[in-house]
């Protein structure tokens, strides 16, 4: 009942909302021109309203594909059936809105290509993330068999120490999978002795240990081929490693939505699956515009204040 009322009021409400919002922006500009301080809580309120409005309106915007993301896609596309891929999910629920779509899309892609995935994590919270991603991937592939199509070796504490050991000997650190089954009895891990034995490594992470550490402690010593999915914040600092030390990178939800787009272009069956990252892009763009306005307002206010000061002096 309540839902029906809100939906019925939807259009009216949304017009009312945006008009009020525009008026609010006008007020903000007026405050800036007259050189008055705006309290930060008001800025918070505006930010919340902008994003809420955009989420409720459900804006979806097109994304453009870029090479750096396409490289990851093409590498997986080029692998053949039965090849093994290592997927490391080094994030926690806080980074999940950005990174889970990547993990999901890469898993879907690999399972569609009949590749075998070994999941691992360097973050204590990553174990729960692996459970979630496998559950998401199983929606489209309900017949996956544990041990034959994928496996989960779980978490080890020790950050760089873990990476440096698995670069040369995977089983020293992970003798068994997450529930104590020896890796020898899992066909996914058959013949995998170190990281370089995986045809491709995809590290999806948002901090330390994360992609930077994968490059430093696995790619450099073992020469493994790696692609990555990075939180938007760490993407700029990872550019020095591209393309020599990692052949592709998905940066933030933009990268994830590009990957989702490519996946749906090549495999239309995924069109019915929820494109989580693409949903984020619309509200995000709206928020960008708002932030640019804020910066412009702030500078107008600053210059006018300086001019006033200059005139009075």
């Amino acid at each position, binding site marked *: 009942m309540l839902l029906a009322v809100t939906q019925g009021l939807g259009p009216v409400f949304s017009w009312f909302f945006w008009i009020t919002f525009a008026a609010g922006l006008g007020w903000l500009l007026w405050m800036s021109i007259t050189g008055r301080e705006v309290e930060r809580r008001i800025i918070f309120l505006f930010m919340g309203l902008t994003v809420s409005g955009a989420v409720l309106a459900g804006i979806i915007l097109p994304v453009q594909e870029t090479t750096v993301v396409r490289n990851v896609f093409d590498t997986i596309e080029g692998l053949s059936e039965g090849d093994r891929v290592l997927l490391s999910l080094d994030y926690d629920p806080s980074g999940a809105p950005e990174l889970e779509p990547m993990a999901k899309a890469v898993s879907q892609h690999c399972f569609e290509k009949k590749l075998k995935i070994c999941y691992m994590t360097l973050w204590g919270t990553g174990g729960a993330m692996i459970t979630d991603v496998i559950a998401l991937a199983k929606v489209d592939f309900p017949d996956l068999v544990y041990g034959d199509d994928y496996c989960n070796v779980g978490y080890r504490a020790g950050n760089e120490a873990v990476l440096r050991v698995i670069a040369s000997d995977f089983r020293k650190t992970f003798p068994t999978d997450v529930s104590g089954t020896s890796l020898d009895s899992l066909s996914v891990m058959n013949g995998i002795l170190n990281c370089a034995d995986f045809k491709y490594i995809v590290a999806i992470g948002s901090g330390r240990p994360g992609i930077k550490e994968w490059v*430093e402690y696995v790619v450099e010593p073992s020469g493994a081929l790696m692609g990555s999915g990075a939180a938007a914040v760490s993407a*700029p600092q990872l550019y020095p490693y591209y393309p020599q030390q990692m052949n592709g990178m998905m940066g933030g939800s933009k990268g994830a939505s590009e990957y989702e787009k490519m996946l749906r272009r090549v495999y239309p069956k995924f069109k019915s699956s929820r494109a989580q990252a693409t949903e984020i892009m619309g509200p995000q763009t709206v928020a960008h515009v708002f932030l640019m306005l804020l910066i412009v307002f702030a500078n107008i206010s600053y210059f006018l204040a300086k001019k006033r000061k200059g005139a009075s002096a």
Partner: protein
Amino acid sequence: MNRKVLIPIASIIVFIGFVLLKLDWDGADRTHELWEALEVTAGGFLTLMIFSFLYKDNAFYKFAEHLYVGISAAYWMCVGFWSNLAQQAIPHLSQSLSEALGQPFLGYIWHYWIPVALGLILLTRLLPESMKIGWISKWTLAFIVASTAGLFITANLQANFIAQIASTMSLPLLPDWTGFGDFLSNFDLSYEGQFVKMFSNWVIIIGVISGLVYFFFSKEHTGWFGRVSRLGIWVLMVTFGAAFGYTVMGRVSLLVGRLTFLFRDWAGVIG
């Protein structure tokens, strides 16, 4: 009754009310349904409690903060125990214990007692300071610090020093050069064009070098050296600007994720 009692009780009643609203007894698996309802309601409440900090510090935020601290510390202990101790150390130390924990015994290795001993030494920190035994934990500290310092040296040398130099030095100053005349007659400013490629290589090489000059410590930044260092600061500022702009994107998407949860899963206003 004072406020200190009233507010918590009222909150609990409201919480239960919201759980009941969310409950959907149609399903066959009732425990599962209850967990679902609890999960979504708790998620919504806790999200709002954290957001209330934006207005000002308050009791709800304090509650969420303290709950978070307690739960997460225990979380890390459990995860660490089951992953590294139960799966890595114990299967090499004790057959009976590893079988009790459901792990296959992987063969006895005596020197795995060393890290266990070092770990226990670390826990002497928890004893009262008056026992004067805490100093022994420095052995473990020394071990931890030294092994990462060792790893850091070679990893940084390979990945962040040598490899970065190699990637920079392989950029030609005149890429795809076919002669000056050709360069002028086919001059264009397209993104894939030769001029942009050349310009980019120059920017990278000069940028890296001037940035390094800025980090020079043992020379006064004056004269030409100071001017190059000034350029270095600008390069760093462009970098910071780019990083800032790109980061905004990530930050907003986290908020979008949270609000989507609130509107979709909790309040159910969008489909």
